[in-house]
């Protein structure tokens, strides 16, 4: 999730503190705190599953790159990676690198008329669909 959750939580802490001052306009306070509550709810929901989602997704993307072999081009080496550092920031950095590689692989596969490429393309779409399921949140707006 961008912006990153810790940065948003820090900003919300300041916002809540500012709204604790008695002379804040009630309508402004209501708007600020209502939005803050919605964001805190989303952050709470994302908190528990964030590492699991990233590890699972990074594993799936590495497997896809491994199956792509030479088609993954200069990104092929990413298939051999491991998530040793389990901090969310480190997992997110690895995830961004892998998803960038997935974009490049998708482009390469679309340009390749072979049946192997079609099969790989179907796998890419499956993974993209699963990525949206991993990111589903009950508090999503739509």
């Amino acid at each position, binding site marked *: 999730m961008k912006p990153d959750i810790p940065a948003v939580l820090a900003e919300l802490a300041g916002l809540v503190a500012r709204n604790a001052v008695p002379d804040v306009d009630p309508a402004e306070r209501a708007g600020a705190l209502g939005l803050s509550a*919605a964001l805190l709810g989303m952050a709470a929901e994302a908190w528990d599953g964030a590492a699991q989602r990233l590890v699972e997704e990074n594993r799936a993307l590495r497997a896809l790159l491994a199956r792509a072999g030479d088609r993954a081009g200069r990104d092929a080496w990413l298939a051999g990676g491991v998530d040793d550092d389990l901090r969310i920031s480190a997992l997110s950095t690895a995830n961004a690198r892998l*998803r960038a590689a997935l974009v490049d692989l*998708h482009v390469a596969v679309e340009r390749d008329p072979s049946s192997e490429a079609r099969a790989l393309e179907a796998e890419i779409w499956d993974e993209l669909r699963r990525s949206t399921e991993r990111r589903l949140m009950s508090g999503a707006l739509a």
Partner: protein
Amino acid sequence: MSSADLASRLAAYAATRMPAAREVEVRDLSRISGGASRQTYRFRLAWTEGGERRERRLILRRDPPASLIDTERRVEFAAYSAFHGSKVPVPEMIWLEEGSEALDQPFSVAEEITGFEAAPALLWTASYLASHEALARTKWTILGEIARADPFALGLDAVMPPPEPEACAFRELDMWEKVLDEDQAEPLPITRAAIRWLRANPPPAAQKIGVVHGDFRTGNFLYDRQGGIHGVLDWEMAHLGDPLEDLGWSLNPVWNFKRNLAGGLVPDAVAIAHWEAASGLRADPAAVRWWTLFNCVKGQAIWISSARAWIDGGNREPIMVLPAWGMQNAQDRAILKVMDRL
């Protein structure tokens, strides 16, 4: 700036715009929550004129330091003004101030339309359920009226550059892809795949160059319990282009609000039929699909740019995070749905 300072400076500004007015006052100034692109306030303007005390309820929309959508307020003001008094209900525009001297940021002032609702969530409460078909008819008929309007006769080509009919689609796609290129904070494999499909499968040329509202959806109009609409708001992305663009935005699945209906109200086919009847234009299914998918990309660019404005520190208000967190995945799923991948 405190509310009291803002009220005082706004009253001083109003006095300069109303030479016959005396004792000009701004009362009950209060911020309206939401409004990610402009800071919005309602207030009462009171003044004495011809020996009589008068009052009017108005809306102030002031530019924030960085907004969700960077737009020209002159274009927005012109769009509202062009449709005022037409079959497309809009509030009357009063003043446009493009300088920063009066209130530190440019702003506009408009009539407040009162007594109606804008929040989408209310539509699915018991009091409103029976109005959905009527509201849908009104909604897409008004959108059809916008499409039917002649932007050249309205003088809008003076502030909105008209594209050639065959250039509408890629002009918009180029613009929003650039926003994504500049603002994305992480890779967007689904959105990028959609862009490649859009480029490989261009739509036919526009049937006409029309006015495109740019953000016509449930949530951006004022409605009643009988299915009436009394004000179409948020014209800040208005431009000239293919009228199908607006239809596609209204059919973007994120505006279904988790119901499998256009705008959460009626099946897509019903909405399209109302639009065709009012606009006099044909909604070719392949073209509608292209514009709907395009609008999913546009939506993603808007959510991404709100995240970017927050990350860069230009606007740290929580309203900038809400679409970034709450809409990106929904927009990705909407793309998959339109591309028959979900």
